[in-house]
Structure formats: structure tokens, C-alpha cells
């Protein structure tokens, strides 16, 4: 029993990301049911929920790895028009390579484990058409440096690196082309708590320095609390609650959110 919020009046910029009324079912399982999400430029949108809540499916859709049964997805960028779910495979690949970066929980999904770390970052640039070795090397190094990756390990293959370092390589790869949108799928889950804090700190610093729009998915409220400006709570493929991060954590409205927040505290 709260007040219905108005449409934005002061902030007149368009959201960078808009997902509207997305539904997806696998057989009889409804993975997503009429889910909508927006993110404004420079904003960090957090999505929390337990496993099976549909949060990762939603994120994969934002990375155009999956197509919903119904719904639309737009990015407010020059030369990017219409419902992105309608793009063909080629256009999707180019869009994802140049405008969207992603960091997966499992580095095997995002990295070539036996190639060099710098090569993993360079691949992004190669896909975008960079053909100078010196430029590739310089840009890959810069991206790894921005991700606070130790440069003496530049050419070490990720398979020889610790989990935290692997995530930094993923992050460097994701930001190498200065994407408009950075997607993070449980980026610190499975890392030691101290390593987790450092990776989160790097993310926070990058976000502040570059004002990248981020969508971060996690079941860990601490991660969301550290990074997100706004939070969406998902359960069983639906959004049960959305709001400013501090409001969700301090004054959760929905029974499920209260349970989640109290379980944390």
C-alpha cells in the first residue's frame, strides 16, 4: 500500500536500455513473465533474486544471446534502432562486440583459457576491425591496466590465473571497446571475500570514472548494495519489486524482498 510513482519530470534524458514486456518459456516452465527493465545512462541497475528467478536469462537477453517469445529491447544509441531482438545473427554479433560488454560468473564462458590474457582482450578489438598489432597491444594493455590486472602477467593464459584475475581479464575484455552497456552476471560469486571486495571496488571505480551504464545480476545482496543505484527484485520469472537501492534495502515492500533483506541482515 504505497503511492504510485509519477513518470520522470526532472530527468528528461532517455533511458539507455529499455526492455519491455519480455516473456519466455521453456516448455511448461515460464522463465520470464512480462518483465520490463530500464537503465538510464551512467546508472547501475542491480537485479537480485534466487537461482531460477530468471535474472540470468534476462541478462543473457540483454546480451542478445537469447530471444524471448514476446517483448522488445532497445538501446538508445546512435545507429542502433528498433527492437534488437529482431536483428539477424550478424548484426547481433557486431552490436554485442562493439557496444555491449559482459562479465560472466564462469570465466570459461567469456575467455579462451589457453590464449594469452592480452589476446583475450585483443580479440574484441580484432572483431571490431583493428588490424595494427601495436595498437592492439597498447589498447589491450590499457584495458587490463584499467581493470587493475598486474601487467607483468599480460601474456599469461587465464587458466594459470586466480579466479579474481580471471574476472579482471573478463572485465578488461568487456571494457576494451568502451561499451555503452556493461553486463555483469554474478561477477564475484565464487571468489574469496577479500578478492571479491577488490573486484567490486574496481567495478565501482570504473563505473565512476567512465560513467558506464551497468546491469549487475547477483543473488548476493552485498554485491548489489555496493554497486547498484536502483534494484529490481525477481522471483519465479517476475519482477516483484523495483526501486532505489537504499529504499529496497531499508524499506522493502514485498514479502519476498523483506525475507531476502532480513535473511541478509
Amino acid at each position: 500500500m504505497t503511492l504510485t510513482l509519477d513518470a520522470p519530470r526532472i530527468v528528461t534524458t532517455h533511458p539507455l536500455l529499455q526492455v519491455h514486456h519480455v516473456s519466455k518459456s521453456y516448455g511448461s516452465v515460464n522463465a520470464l513473465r512480462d518483465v520490463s527493465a530500464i537503465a538510464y545512462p551512467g546508472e547501475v541497475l542491480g537485479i537480485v533474486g534466487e537461482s531460477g528467478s530468471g535474472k540470468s536469462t534476462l541478462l543473457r537477453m540483454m546480451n542478445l544471446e537469447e530471444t524471448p517469445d514476446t517483448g522488445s529491447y532497445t538501446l538508445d544509441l546512435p545507429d542502433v534502432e528498433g527492437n534488437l531482438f529482431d536483428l539477424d545473427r550478424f548484426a547481433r554479433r557486431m552490436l554485442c562486440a562493439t557496444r555491449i560488454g559482459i562479465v560472466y560468473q564462469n570465466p570459461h564462458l567469456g575467455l579462451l583459457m589457453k590464449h594469452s590474457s592480452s589476446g583475450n582482450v585483443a580479440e574484441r578489438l580484432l572483431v571490431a576491425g583493428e588490424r595494427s598489432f601495436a595498437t592492439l597491444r597498447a589498447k589491450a594493455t590499457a584495458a587490463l591496466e584499467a581493470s587493475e590486472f598486474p601487467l607483468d602477467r599480460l601474456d599469461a593464459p587465464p587458466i594459470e590465473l586466480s579466479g579474481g584475475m580471471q574476472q579482471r581479464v573478463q572485465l578488461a575484455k568487456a571494457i576494451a571497446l568502451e561499451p555503452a552497456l556493461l553486463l555483469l552476471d554474478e561477477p564475484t560469486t565464487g571468489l574469496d571475500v577479500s578478492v571479491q571486495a577488490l573486484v567490486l571496488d574496481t567495478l565501482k571505480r570504473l563505473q565512476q570514472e567512465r560513467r558506464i551504464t551497468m546491469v549487475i545480476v547477483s543473488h548476493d545482496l552485498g554485491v548489489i548494495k555496493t554497486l547498484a543505484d536502483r534494484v529490481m527484485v525477481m522471483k519465479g520469472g517476475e519482477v516483484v519489486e523495483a526501486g532505489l537501492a537504499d529504499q529496497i534495502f531499508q524499506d522493502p515492500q514485498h514479502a519476498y524482498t523483506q525475507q531476502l533483506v532480513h535473511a541478509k541482515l
Partner: protein
Amino acid sequence: MTLHALTKPWEPMSYGFLDASAKREIRRKMIKAIAVPGCQMPYASHEVPMARGWGTGGLQVSLTLVNPSMRVKVIDQGADDSVNAASIRRFIARVAGTPTTMDTLDADLIQSRHRIPEEVLREDQVLVLQVPNPEPLRPVQPNMSIARQMHADADYGRMWLQLYEQIVRSGRVMQGASYPSLVHGRHVMTPSPIPRWDVPKLHMAKHLTILSAGREKRIFAVPPFTRVEPLVFSDVPYKVEDHADLTCHRSGTRGFFMNEIPQDDGTSVFEVSDSAWGVKAIRRRDGEEVALGETWYKNGKMPS
């Protein structure tokens, strides 16, 4: 009218060994391959009396193209007189009644394994290259279905990454033979295991090149006057083998691709790889009137 008048007498085999339908299929696939330069076209790859992997792909193309007036040359690693080359040459001559030659200038059809002759090929000549592995993406993408999708999308980032990795790890591009090359600005192909030395010969060449893999059942082509550009970084130039300053110890010819022949004392001597070119050079040195064609490389340099 009798049945005899309507039919041909029994013959032991079709002209050129392959039956008419097989040749028709290969002709159609060759036309497709020429229409989309560098793009691999699947074909049936019939049985020929030779083991798969020994040039059956090239042989089927040669058998499809030959007619009794075409002069055929077959080379293996540059040599006309190796067992494999001699056998294939003899087989084509037997089943198609074609004259044969070892001189590149006289040949109408050249079937080759791993080399392109040193003398410039003309518009009226066809080069058939035997291909063991037609898929340049295989080292980076073992799943061939995905590899085909990557070709369709011109998604060659991984190929470039492979070169990047080689430079990072070894300081230079390690790829020797089968150097991946972009054909007509669209498809990346393997030029078959020819040395890096030979790849520039395909670029804007006057002749038609057909590449055929019998075991893998793929045909692709480089039509005349088509761009063939080895994948290289803009600031790391393409390098051919360091053979420009080597001299053939038998013919004295210099500035061509050489075979290294190790000696008992640990040193090496070199012998020109294109044996027909070496033979002609020796005959000319010995005072014979021999026509030497124009070569792609001049003084060990490929004119750009």
C-alpha cells in the same frame, strides 16, 4: 532398328575414368566455387583408384577438366618425378589419352601438391591444388558447423587472434605453409600447404586455381584476377621464407624456393624446389636452346 544401333559398344570405363554424372557434379561445384571465390563447396568425392589423402581431390578435378588435346603436368612438392606425381600423371594419360609434359610453359593443366611453379602462369592455364585440410578455421574452431557459420558471418576474429598469439609467444608469425588468406575481401581460405613463398603468386593471378580436398569433400577456387591477401597486421609485414639469397647447388639458379639437403658434415646444400625449372636451367647452362618463362619472383623479390 536394332538395339545395337542405339547403344555404344561396351567399354572398360568412361572417358577420364569418372562417369558422366560424377564429372557433371564436379563441374557444377567448380562453377559455384568460381562464382564465390574462396568459399568451400561440398561435393560427393567419388572413389578413384588411389587412397584418400593422396591427391584424390585434385585428381577428380583434373579428370573432369581434361580432354585429349590438353597437356597435363603433375608436380609433388615441386618435383615432376616423385612417385606420386609420376603415378597420377600416368593415370590421367592412360584414362584420358592426354599428352603430358614437365615444362610449366607447355602445360594446359597443372595438378600440384604443395607448390606453385616458379614460372608465371597464363590465362589459358589451370592450376589444380591438392588440399588435405580445406578448413582454415579448424585450428580455432573444431566444430565445423560453427566454423561454417563463422564463414557466413565473416567472423574471422579468432584467425587474427591466432596470429596475435604467435607474435606474443614467439615474436613472429609462426604459420609456415597453408597461410590463411582472404580471398576477394570476403572468405578466408587455406591456399593448401604451399609455402608462404607461393601465396603472393595467387594474388591477381591470370590463371584459374581450383583447390580440391578429396577426403574432406570440398572444392574452392581462386578465379583469375582475384585478390588473395594473407592475413597480416598492418604493422607486421608478411614475410616469405628466407630463400632469396640461396643458390641451387645443381643448377646454379638463385632466388627461388629451395629444398634443403642436409649433409653428413652437418651443413646443408640447397636445391631448387621447382624441379622442371632446375632441369631447364641446367640444360640452358649446358648450351641447349631452352625457353625459360617469366618468373613471379625476380632476383628473389616478388614485385608488388
